[in-house]
């Protein structure tokens, strides 16, 4: 599979049912990732986001081992991990070591479970690196329902969550329940990661949840605009990745992550030039 051979039949590939599902999944994932990405950065929880995906890994491979759906195991472990991280509190420097240690252990455990059965072993690569081309109709329905719930929850808690993310002490003094906000946000983040893993996998999730939001904060100044912009960037990365992966036979995850990183690199470069000039 030479990635530089152009496939002239790529437009036909795009209209196949698995590609249509991939595009729909991309839309759902972009909406979810965009809604939480800004807050993940504002709350200094980017490392937690990365860790939650890895904590989900043994859940995913363990679920395959037990014959359960991957999303159930992944989501369960991610949620449990997210709530533990939330309970550890917001003192980031202390939390990083605990989170990182649990992350490493969880990844090892995920490998252990995967090696216990051949089916889990086969699934390991798609859990680690994603397999957006194998998303089923049922998964799309699940994603869509999750998105609707997520957007309603985020709309309701938007301002207090923003206040507690940016000015925790003042928000607490003004009566915002910061502990509840933290737990709620972490739970939401676990959900978003659970639906984003099928696209790019646990290892590359950072590029969909955090990177577009980081790019968006460079180009926008209000939180709402940053959320809209990061959703758009995420969507362009996924859809663009799918189109390019149809043209050139490269893994979609690779192209998606490359585009997301490229946008970020350009935004950072332009920002640096603007500061100097």
């Amino acid at each position, binding site marked *: 599979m030479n990635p530089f051979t152009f496939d002239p039949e790529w437009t036909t590939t795009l209209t196949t049912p698995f590609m249509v599902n991939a595009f729909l999944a991309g839309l759902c994932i972009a909406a979810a990732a965009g809604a939480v990405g800004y807050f993940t950065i504002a709350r200094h929880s980017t490392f937690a986001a990365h860790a939650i995906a890895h904590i989900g890994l043994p859940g995913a491979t363990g679920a395959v081992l037990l014959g359960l759906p991957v999303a159930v195991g992944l989501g369960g472990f991610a949620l449990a991990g997210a709530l533990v991280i939330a309970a550890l509190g917001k003192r980031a420097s202390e939390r990083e070591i605990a989170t990182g240690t649990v992350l490493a252990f969880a990844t090892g455990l995920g490998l252990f479970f995967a090696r216990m059965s051949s089916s889990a072993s086969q699934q390991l690569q798609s859990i680690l690196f994603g397999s957006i081309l194998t998303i089923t109709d049922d998964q799309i329905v699940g994603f869509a329902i999750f998105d609707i719930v997520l957007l309603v929850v985020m709309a309701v808690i938007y*301002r207090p969550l923003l*206040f507690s993310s*940016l000015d925790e*002490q*003042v928000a607490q*003094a003004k009566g915002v329940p910061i502990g509840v906000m933290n737990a709620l946000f972490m739970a939401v983040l676990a959900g978003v990661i659970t639906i984003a893993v099928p696209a790019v996998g646990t290892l590359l999730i950072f590029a969909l949840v955090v990177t577009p939001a980081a790019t968006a*904060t460079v180009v926008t100044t209000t939180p709402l605009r940053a959320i809209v912009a990061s959703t758009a960037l995420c969507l362009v990365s996924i859809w663009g990745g799918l189109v390019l992966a149809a043209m050139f036979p490269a893994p979609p995850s690779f192209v998606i992550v490359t585009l997301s990183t490229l946008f970020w690199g350009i935004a950072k470069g332009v920002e640096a030039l603007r500061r100097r000039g």
Partner: protein
Amino acid sequence: MQQSDASERRGPSVECRDIAVKRGGTTIWSHGTFTIPRGTVTAIVGTNGAGKTTLMKAELGVIPLSHGTMRVLGAAPGEDNARIGYVPQSYTNDIDSSLTAEQSVLLGLTGTRFGFHPVTRRQRAKAHEAMEFIGIADKAKLRLSELSGGLRQRVAIAQALVSNPELLMLDEPLANLDLASQRTTVQILSRLNTELGMSIQIVAHDLNMLLPILTGAVYLLDGHPHYARLNDVLDSKLLTHLYGTKVQVVTTPQGAMFVTPNMAEPGGCDMHDADEVARFHHHGHAGARPQTDGGATR
């Protein structure tokens, strides 16, 4: 900005009866019985770890009292915090923040509301009024990360002001600021107090910059909070005891008083107490008033 209604200003700003705070089994301070009148500018002073910030957080109801009762603006701590503006010390931590000054100030009005509420024209006008008062209206569209420490702190003050608080609490507002920024901040606080009648509390290490506007201080000494009017706080013996290092009160020709920790060995250099210094100035400058009673000239 509106002046608080005179009818609202009855009663003291803070009233404490035998208050104590424990954290992790250790008593931070105890036996605090004092009253801070309305419309005053009060410093909260004490050595590192004396519990200055703890006192402020107890007033906000964030840290519970282990003993005694406290009323803040006539209500139990934490019960009516919408009437309190709070500027924590950590404003410098948000250096990475991509938020604009205006967005940050707006959060002071909208940040506690659940549900979907677009920002109204009135809220935006209110935010601009607050930024105008603080003198940062021209910085409204700049990101916090583009502002200096002094300006970021003024944004934090504007955010606290935007909801028209009756009491403003600031934790170490002058720390990490250069002299010009310190002076600007003190001038803003002075205007808030005199023009809007706002009660102000300031946690501070260094009283020097604040002396011109202070009316009193809560000092945390030997594990107990005490309140005193400024004249009584500016006592060399008390300050020396309070800070655990030799402190002098001197009077300058301008009439301002300074509290100066003396770094030199005791007796190793020219040391004078307040009365002596006052007499020097009496001799040297006909206009300067003697400070024989240790009182303020303001």
